[in-house]
């Protein structure tokens, strides 16, 4: 993994593009999603490109992008021509650095060799495939529109089209499913040899159908401790297969870590376009975009901002103003520190301790076997990772 780079104080080099379209809403998903309507893709992509132009104008001299991430939703539902159009605009307005990571999230059911080739031709260097499970029962339960066979076929197709880097997502902690279901899925997935794996605990998010079912007692999520066992089983299985855990839920072969996602956890800057997308910008740039951060507010270095979540509302905003942004907030030094520690502790590389109070608290936590300290950085131990949120709170109480 590349060394943590100091964020360029002025120029974001990452771009997130949200593509909300899905065939149906999955019962556990709480993202900004727009179901159906291929007819709408063209208009939406036009808005995304308009937003890119609008941002690039404000950036004055945009830095070439080091990572682009098309997430969703299901970006693979867009026709490859539209994907190419978005990337083309990004290239034209911001520039995309040689060797940049360009990720596209894909559903197995959308993947064909032809499409995969078209994505590569459009500049995609990495596909993140929503496998979720290789147990057809689980896939049905999760409301996915693909089967295990289709998922494995998709992996072969992507490899066949020479997609340089392949990541696959799996879920564990599915209500009513035995541990072996997840374990068998991971084993089979590793045989297919992706470069990167994300293993997420299925979490009933607020407002999702899954959460409602849990509340109503219709489904019973596994005991938290059982989920921890799944997690550690996965960590060990993946390590044995050559995948190092670098974030709580993310594993990669050497050099295959997601450069884009690391920006999130390392407090990097990123542009964001598309409905419901969140960006993180230097205050100076946000000001040029018309965000009313008071200029001589010394504590405020950063602005987090977000676009309208509803597609119609987003499209109207872009149409009227050139931008889809719905809100923003100034992040002062204290808040940035909360984010830095909270995100940094998720990483195996840990977080740099910056104050004597933090070091004192970290030492206390390490005496309790929750952190280890080396080179001025604190990393969670196994137990520390299990209690990550509580450890974060405690470290931040310093």
């Amino acid at each position, binding site marked *: 993994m590349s060394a943590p780079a100091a964020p360029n104080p002025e120029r974001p080099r990452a771009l997130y593009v949200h593509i909300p379209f899905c065939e149906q809403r999955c019962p556990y998903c709480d993202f900004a999603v727009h179901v159906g309507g291929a007819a709408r893709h063209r208009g939406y992509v036009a808005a995304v490109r308009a937003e890119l132009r609008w941002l690039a104008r404000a950036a004055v001299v945009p830095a070439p992008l080091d990572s682009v991430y098309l997430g969703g939703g299901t970006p693979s539902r867009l026709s490859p021509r539209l994907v190419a159009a978005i990337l083309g605009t990004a290239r034209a307005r911001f520039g995309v650095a040689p060797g940049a990571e360009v990720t596209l999230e894909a559903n197995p059911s959308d993947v064909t060799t032809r499409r995969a080739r078209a994505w590569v031709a459009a500049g995609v260097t990495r596909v993140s495939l929503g496998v979720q499970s290789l147990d057809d029962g689980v896939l049905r339960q999760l409301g996915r529109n693909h089967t295990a066979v289709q998922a494995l076929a998709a992996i072969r197709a992507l490899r066949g089209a020479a997609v340089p880097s392949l990541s696959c997502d799996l879920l564990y902690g599915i209500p009513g499913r035995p541990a072996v279901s997840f374990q068998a899925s991971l084993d089979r997935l590793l045989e297919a040899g992706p470069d990167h794996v994300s293993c997420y605990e299925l979490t009933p998010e607020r407002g999702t159908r899954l959460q409602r079912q849990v509340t109503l007692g219709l489904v019973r999520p596994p005991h938290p401790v059982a989920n921890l066992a799944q997690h550690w089983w996965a960590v060990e299985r993946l390590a044995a297969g050559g995948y190092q855990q670098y974030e*709580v839920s993310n594993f990669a072969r050497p050099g295959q870590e997601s450069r884009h996602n690391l920006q999130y956890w390392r407090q990097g800057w990123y542009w964001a376009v598309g409905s419901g997308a969140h960006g993180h910008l230097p205050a100076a740039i946000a000001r040029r975009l018309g965000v009313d951060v008071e200029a001589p507010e010394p504590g405020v270095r950063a602005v987090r901002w977000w676009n309208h979540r509803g597609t119609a509302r987003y499209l109207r905003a872009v149409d009227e103003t050139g931008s889809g942004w719905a809100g923003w907030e100034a992040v002062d030094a204290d808040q940035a520190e909360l984010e830095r520690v909270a995100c940094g502790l998720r990483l195996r590389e840990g977080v740099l301790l910056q104050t004597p109070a933090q070091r004192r608290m970290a030492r206390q936590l390490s005496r309790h076997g929750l952190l280890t300290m080396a080179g001025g950085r604190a990393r969670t131990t196994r137990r520390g990772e299990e209690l990550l949120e509580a450890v974060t709170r405690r470290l931040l109480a310093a």
Partner: protein
Amino acid sequence: MPASPIERVRNFSIIAHIDHGKSTLADRLLERTGSVAARDMAEQVLDSMDLERERGITIKAQAVRLVHQAPDGTAYQLNLIDTPGHVDFAYEVSRALAACEGAILVVDATQGIEAQTLANVYKALDLGLTLVPVINKIDLPAAEPERVRAAIESVIGLPAEDCLLVSARTGDGIDAVLAAVVAQIPAPRGDRAAPLRALIFDSKYDAYRGVMVYVRVMEGRLRAGTSITMMASRRTFTVDEVGFFRPQMTPTDELAAGEVGYLVAAIRDVRAARVGDTITEADRPAAAALAGYRQATPMVWAGIYPVEGDRYPDLREALERLQLNDAALTFEPETSVALGFGFRCGFLGLLHLDIVQERLEREFDLTLITTAPSVAYRVTTRDGEVVIVDNPAHLPDPAAVEVIEEPRVRSEIMVPREFLGNLMELCQERRGEFIHLEHQAGERVLLRYDLPLGEIIHDFYDQLKSRSRGYASLDYELHEYRAAQLVKLDILVAGTRVDALSAIVHREKAQAYGRRLVERLRQLIPRQLFEVAIQAAIGGRIVARETVPALRKDVLAKCYGGDITRKRKLLEKQRAGKQRMKRVGSVEIPQEAFMAVLSLDQG
């Protein structure tokens, strides 16, 4: 407006048990005399503090002037001085009564006389006040006015036929009350030509005008421009304004002997105008001061600490401000290993404590931790020194202690006969000593017990109520200090003694108390990153132990773009929510834990 002729002035209070309808009656009097337009009537006008209105109780004495047109056309000036009803505020009652010649005694037609009412009746009779008995709530189906009438005659000795039947709610009988106030309560006496003597019966701090002094003029006249001297504090001021309450402040030309009102004199230091002091003229001083008041003595002590240590100076200022109109509150700096810098505060009782904390937080925007309340013990050491210990953590080493004496009260409990057994049992449980039992009219019993104050400051009143289905009432006063077998119980959290959780308890109850307390603390202390042992110890001996197991899992699977804002907001919220947590060693103890003793089930 010139002063009213003294023979047309009446000064009176209302004595009533909580919920017997005192405030409603006061409202009705205000309304009937046109002192408040009906449309301006907020419910219960006299309870002007927000807190008072929210809780339906009176905390501070208030004074309001009514103008009553008698049927013969004569206008009378009636000064109504409102009094609190809760036992904690008995002291405020005596102050108010001293400014009056009479009192309306309100008794609920469905409830009868309560112990608290009786105590205040005695106070009024001691001060030579004329009582106008009023039986209220006669409109209720459960009203038994005849029974209550008989009780008033037999218990208090007021002729049954003098009792007025009233419904303050419907307004029935209010005119008769006003007529009786004029006819029965004597006009004040006092020479208006004599040198000024005015009694300070209350004060209030106003940020713009300084201390507002509530006075009853006994002799002479008080006008704006008068140069006055406080006879006790010997401070001199020039009066800027005199006036009265209607109930809003109304400036007037003068207050003459017999009248009640306020004065403003740019007094910045509340200590310069102490309640109970006598005001006289600087140029023509009176020969002697009026009899003042007995200073209210706190019964209960607790530590109050700011959650954020740097707000300590703010807390000091807030307490000073509060003391301006709460003379009964005392405070002294103290330090706790667990809680840092704070104050040991003295209160009249737990309701008083609760109200003070609420006012500090509400009016001064402080976040506070209050420790478990304690009474003051008298400790004689082996070398003969006597120390008063109002903080259990400061109890000297047992080896150095010759004797510990605890405060005891003489209590009067009024209860319907059917619950007598229950209440005697309660008093025995609390180490009470039976003194006397008296059967009274209407199936009621007056029970006298000697009780350790420490056993009744919390939960006793609630128990009294619940074991008598709400019918019992209580009054008590400090009686004596007496030696008892008392020990200090310490609480250790993760091996560290938490001084703020120490308690002084009776030897025979100590172990059971320790067990209940650690059990309660186990419920109150949230799971932490590691297992936390909670122990109770007497001397070096552990008498109880509980364990708070460590957290098992607390990790979120995902954290991407928009999650980061969400997560930070959660952290910020938790930080704010944590405000009431104190870290002792490596354990976070929530605020409620320091008051755990108050939520113990009595075993």
